[in-house]
């Protein structure tokens, strides 16, 4: 354990090596370490965010599904109501048409009956005249007895 000038050489080497490490070794390694730490932190944060996003999306999906189901039910209810209404209207319309048709037919029937009655009356008058002619064996002048015939017609009414 003798001391000699090796000591000063070692002292110089000590500082040179330390300087080199400070200049060229430490900064890039620390930078890489810090960046990696940041990367990992970012990755973890992103994973967390993705998880929250997924949960939110699922919640949203459920909500949307519920809304869709509700609106579908509403549409169906509306449609049913509308259909019922249409059916109702159609039924009323039909009833109206039937009633009108019946009325028209009744009127027509009444007119026809009237007309037939009148025709019948005409013919009855003619038959009565013809009968009377037979009975009297003499031709009755229609023109002369028009008043008589009209009276007869009147009575037959």
């Amino acid at each position, binding site marked *: *354990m*003798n*001391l*000699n*000038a*090796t*000591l*000063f*050489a*070692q*002292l110089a*080497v*000590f*500082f040179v*090596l*330390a300087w*080199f*490490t*400070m200049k*060229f*070794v*430490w*900064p*890039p*390694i*620390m*930078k*890489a*370490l810090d*960046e*990696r730490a*940041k*990367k990992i932190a970012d990755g973890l944060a992103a994973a967390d965010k993705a998880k929250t996003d997924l949960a939110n999306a699922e919640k949203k999906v459920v909500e949307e599904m519920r809304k869709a189901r509700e609106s579908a039910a509403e549409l169906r209810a509306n449609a049913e109501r509308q259909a019922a209404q249409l059916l109702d209207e159609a039924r009323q319309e039909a009833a109206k048409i039937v009633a009108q048709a019946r009325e028209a037919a009744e009127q027509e029937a009444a007119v026809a009956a009237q007309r037939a009655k009148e025709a019948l009356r005409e013919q009855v008058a003619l038959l009565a005249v013809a009968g009377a002619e037979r009975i009297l064996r003499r031709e009755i002048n229609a023109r002369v007895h028009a008043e008589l015939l009209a009276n007869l017609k009147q009575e037959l009414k």
Partner: protein
Amino acid sequence: MATANGPTASEYIVHHLTHLNTSGHKQEAIVDWSVVNLDTLFWSLALGLLTVFLLARAARRATPGVPGRFQAAVEFVVEMVADQAKGIVHSAESRRFVAPLALTVFVWIFLMNAMDLLPLDLLPRIWEGIYAAAGNDPHHAYLRIVPTADLNATLGMSIGVLLLCFYYNIKIKGLGGWVHELFTAPFGSHPLLYPVNFLMQMIEFAAKTISHGMRLFGNMYAGELLFMLIALMGAAWAGTATGAFLWIGHVIAGAAWAIFHILIITLQAFIFMMLTLVYIGQAHEGH
């Protein structure tokens, strides 16, 4: 080194504990600033360059993406050092130099300590061959391969830490503030206490620095010495029953000590790094 006509046990150990230095023989004086230990210098420089090469490689390839194994290993060490630095040195600006310094110190000292795990005679033997081939006396082919088992290396680094403590003391507190602290802490501001305070501060700095360097040196030197003693057991193999037992003892003790030494080299590197951070951290805090 235990050849048939080889050295005695004490010669073997002395040879292994002698540095390859610029004087060409064992340094006699305790302190001789004209001598440089070439082996310590070579191995510490080589391992220092290996340290920065490995770290720079990892730094160049550093990406925020998925790291490879080497990348992850370096990052693991870097994060460990960064965490420790953050807990001990509270100035973010100082940390920009101190944390890389601690990283270098840790990896570098770990590698220097790890030289102890190489077979004890491997590199010295190769060096002996080269030395002899160059036409020199192989008995003077000294080589010690563990730089941290050289007090010069460990004290060199701990004095480096001391200089950094001075630097940060002045930088944080100002020269006046630091001088004021040297004379008024730890006992208080009273003219009678000034010399006592100053003496205490000087003792504190000296004790910190010497213990910082000595701790690492002592651990590694003792470890190396123990490996040598274990190697002597194996070298006693001579076909006799005692020799055979000693050889088996070498295998068991060598394996056990090497395994335990893995812990020691890591722990000592860690301790040196932590104390570096602690001492520099203390320089940031007023008494």
